[in-house]
């Protein structure tokens, strides 16, 4: 590990350079940002390629196929290859088979998962006795929000009133989320500044 690449210069210079290059976007688009942006995009795409190749294609397809005889893994393999027929205009339509498989599978799984995994538990946890203010707030909040999404009638009259209350609830929640997220993101900025001024430049303690 004791090569030139682990020397403090490289160890700190590279991250600091790219950190500053990304921040320069805040001022305006410039060559440094453009450079960083393209390096970032290239590395990330390459990173993803390396990761998927190793963890999916190799570990999930070839390893089970060759070591435990899971020859059924040829099915997704073949489907995957069909994606490439798009480069041959005459049989291009075949490329829809893997797409249909993937989208159909998603729809099938999600259909059940949404009904079973999301709606039921959320309903269950809303079954609260109306004996204190907090519970009442939760129940009213859930119901009015649901009514806000009602598509079939114009939001006028009583329905409109309830939908409006729903909107108010939604705004309280969004305001709160906003506030919390501000806190999280500001922490990250502080972290970067501590890196620049404490770890890199040693200007501050």
């Amino acid at each position: 590990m004791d090569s030139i690449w682990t020397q403090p210069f490289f160890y700190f210079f590279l991250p600091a350079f790219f950190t500053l290059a990304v921040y320069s976007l805040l001022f305006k688009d410039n060559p440094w940002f453009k450079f960083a942006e393209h390096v970032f995009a290239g590395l990330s795409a390459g990173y993803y390629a390396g990761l998927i190749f190793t963890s999916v294609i190799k570990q999930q397809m070839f390893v089970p196929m060759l070591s435990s005889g899971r020859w059924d893994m040829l099915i997704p393999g073949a489907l995957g290859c069909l994606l490439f027929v798009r480069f041959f205009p005459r049989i291009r339509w075949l490329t829809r088979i893997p797409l249909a498989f993937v989208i159909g599978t998603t729809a099938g799984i999600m259909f059940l998962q949404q009904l079973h995994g999301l709606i039921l538990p959320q309903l269950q946890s809303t079954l609260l006795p109306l004996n204190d203010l907090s519970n009442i707030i939760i129940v009213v909040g859930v119901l009015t929000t649901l009514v806000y999404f009602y598509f079939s009638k114009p939001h006028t009259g009583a329905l409109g009133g309830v939908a409006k209350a729903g909107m108010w609830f939604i705004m309280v929640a969004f305001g709160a989320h906003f506030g919390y997220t501000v806190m999280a993101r500001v922490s990250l900025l502080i972290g970067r500044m501590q890196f620049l001024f404490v770890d890199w430049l040693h200007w501050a303690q």
Partner: protein
Amino acid sequence: MLAWVDSVGWVIAAGVPGLIRTDRLNALVLLIVFSIVVIYFIRRAARGEKLYVRPLAGLQAVEEAVGRATEMGKPVLFIPGTGDIDEIQTIAGLSILGLVAKVTARYETPLLVPVLYPMPMAAAQEVVRESYIDEGKADHLRPETVQYIAGESFSYSARVGGMMLREKPAANIFMGTFHAESLLISEVGQSTGAIQIAGTAEPEQLPFFIAACDYTLIGEELYAASAYLSQESKMLGSLKGQDLVKMIIIFCLLAGILAVTFGVYPEFVVDLFTAN
């Protein structure tokens, strides 16, 4: 249609284990009620019955935004979310992309679709191509219309941000799953003065879209968008069905809450809603 055959198999297969596992009976009932109600309304719509759905401001703005981009001679940027294909929101985004691509093809407005993951990219390429062929504008399609970018959300944001600053699209449409990159993308878009329309079902990201975009579709509205935009009666019928189920759920919930409050078989009622 392959997806169809495939998926019918799915429903049957999904139903079978449900039948065996009695503790999942409640989910099965919900599934059956939901399917019956939605299919019933789709049938009614198919028979030509006129069904009312209230307008959604964000969607009316889509065509307007594309129109403006055409006038200005600038491109439209569309992002079908930053999720992979295994999220139904991505598919909703791709559906909307199909309809938006038709409009851009018709007006010959350049379209930019940067995609984060390869599989949605493959799907998006097909969707856009079909739309352009349908409008008889296949020769206006360029390889850089739908492009794959990065596979990692922050480098994606940097790249899309750069794209917005240089190509200056007149309209940015974001529809699908979004995570922390929501504001990174929409804030840069805002600074370029584009009309921005967003839609996502991620509660955490909605406040940021609301702050940085001109119109925002919230949660359920995202899934309804393709039905609205296509104006196809069967699709609108499914919205009606979904609404009725929503009402049924609200009434069940009210009944359940009253039962719990007044102590009428509270355990049994809670059990009814327990997912196993």
